[in-house]
């Protein structure tokens, strides 16, 4: 599909949205580059869905501005190049799966000669190839979700916005959806993944913006947000393991699962194991890695809460 506009796929400046007395978005600055798989991460009620609705013109901002595919938010031409999976939806029960896709081929204004191929591809991608003639009324929640994903990917849009795409799925379904999102990313499609599932974002996204109470509180590549490299090692047969291991890096703590060293350059892991063995000790488990996104996320959200409380002069 030919790209429209220039510049980033999504850009917002001081986007603010208020529903009556409730502030859904305070002042959101966002930038999503073309071709990246981008995660919008935040707890429930953080303003993620509002952001998406503003980008698509489903609701209007109270103030601020934004662009989707180089066009003003809600622009018809930008929407023609966009696929969207809403968070909560139910297709009309009387429609068959291929009829839902057909309707969206029409609404997306795809050339009629491409419909049959697009519908087949979409059903294949989401694992519903044999269920195309079935009515939606017979679909489980997970199957409806997969059909929604097929609708969003119809016609290979330039950008796909997925709002909590795996929330209704079992672990197997989640894995399949992750594969579909990876494939879309590999085809060069810009993907915005709205999620409160940290593991999801950690596995799929190139970059993440963490939203809390309507503001972006952190943004950057996932690896940068994950924190410093660490090593958890469980040993026995050594009188003072803390002294031995502490020579390689700061010991953060010790429990039943072992001793945690952080930071520790991953290239030094074999040296640590060799030192334990040389000292006559036995190594039961070695787990190199980084802090999880969950740790980083919780730290950020909690510190944001502390900052807010301090702003208004009350204790957290």
């Amino acid at each position, binding site marked *: 599909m030919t790209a429209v506009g220039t510049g980033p796929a999504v850009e917002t400046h001081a986007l603010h949205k208020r529903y009556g007395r409730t502030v859904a978005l305070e002042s959101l600055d966002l930038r999503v580059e073309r071709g990246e798989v981008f995660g919008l991460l935040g707890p429930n009620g953080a303003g993620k869905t509002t952001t998406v*609705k503003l980008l698509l*013109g489903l609701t209007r901002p109270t103030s601020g501005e934004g662009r989707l595919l180089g066009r003003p938010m809600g622009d018809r031409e930008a929407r023609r190049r966009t696929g969207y999976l809403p968070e909560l939806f139910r297709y009309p029960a009387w429609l068959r799966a291929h009829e839902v896709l057909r309707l969206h081929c029409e609404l997306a204004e795809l050339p009629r000669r491409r419909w049959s191929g697009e519908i087949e591809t979409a059903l294949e991608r989401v694992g519903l190839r044999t269920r195309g003639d079935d009515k939606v009324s017979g679909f489980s929640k997970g199957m409806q979700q997969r059909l929604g994903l097929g609708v969003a990917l119809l016609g290979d849009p330039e950008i796909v916005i997925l709002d909590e795409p795996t929330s209704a799925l079992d672990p197997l379904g989640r894995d399949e959806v992750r594969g579909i999102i990876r494939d879309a990313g590999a085809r060069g499609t810009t993907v915005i993944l709205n999620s409160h599932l940290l593991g999801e974002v950690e596995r799929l996204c190139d970059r993440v913006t963490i939203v809390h109470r309507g503001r972006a509180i952190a943004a950057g590549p996932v690896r940068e947000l994950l924190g410093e490299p660490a090593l958890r090692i469980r040993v026995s047969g050594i009188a003072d393991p803390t002294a031995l291991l502490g020579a390689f890096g700061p010991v953060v703590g010790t429990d039943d699962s072992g001793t945690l060293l952080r930071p520790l350059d991953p290239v030094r892991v074999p040296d640590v194991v060799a030192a334990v063995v040389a000292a006559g000790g036995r190594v039961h488990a070695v787990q190199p890695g980084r802090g999880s996104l969950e740790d980083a996320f919780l730290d950020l959200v909690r510190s944001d809460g502390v900052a807010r409380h301090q702003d208004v002069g009350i204790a957290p």
Partner: protein
Amino acid sequence: MSARQVWAIVGLTVGETIRRRTLLVLLILAVVSTLIVGWGVDQLVTTARENELSETTIRLGVSQVLILIAFLFSFVLAMSAAFLAAPAIAADLESGTILAMLARPTSRTDIIVGRWIGLSIVIVGYTLLAGAMALVAVRVVSGYFPGEPLTALGFLAGESAVVLTLALMLGVRLPAVAAGAVTVVLFAISWFGGVLGALSAAFDAESIRPLTDLLRYAVPTDLLWRGVIYALEPPLAILLGQGLGAGQEANPFFASSPPPPGQVIWAGLWIVGVLLLAIGLFRRREL
């Protein structure tokens, strides 16, 4: 507004009434009611002829029965239009389907106009078909056929269009059930306004006239209903009714004249205005 988008929504709307068997149920009801009407009128005519009543009297009687049937039919139509149109937008909002549709290059105007055209095709088509079936059945068993059958069906279709437009507009802001219920109540109030207006004319109670006019013009179904009555009446009934003067005017099933052109134009403008209001309300609605 895009014609392609509008026709996609029209197709969805008509397809829904066919696939959910709503149209089938309506058609079965139309056939059943035609059979009942045919049987009932046949019984009346046979009894009247056995009692050696004149053919003129019989035709006058049949015309009155036909108007009563049309009155019941207009209520059925109003209910059908209200409960088909009320969820047209409301249900899509509740299910979230509308979000995926509006994320396409589809405008809110496309959706309202497409829904309205689709519902009009179904309801107006049903009105014409079921109405024609009843008229033919009465003709077969009694020999009576009103002078202006197409005009009568046209006014009935106009009533349906008013009701479905109102229900569609209310469904933009209210839950489907509430929108349907409010529409039926407003339809009934309009008819009641017509009856009260006729009584006020018959008994010179001019003081309540502004109120009854307000009720009839606010939802112009009663204005159109007067057109149905007039078109179904034989000329003799109109002459006799006019001869009875103001007393006959109080009869809610009699009209001495068709609705003036101004009232028909008002009903048309009302439909356009309420449709525009529905578009405006939908465009302002937060999703």
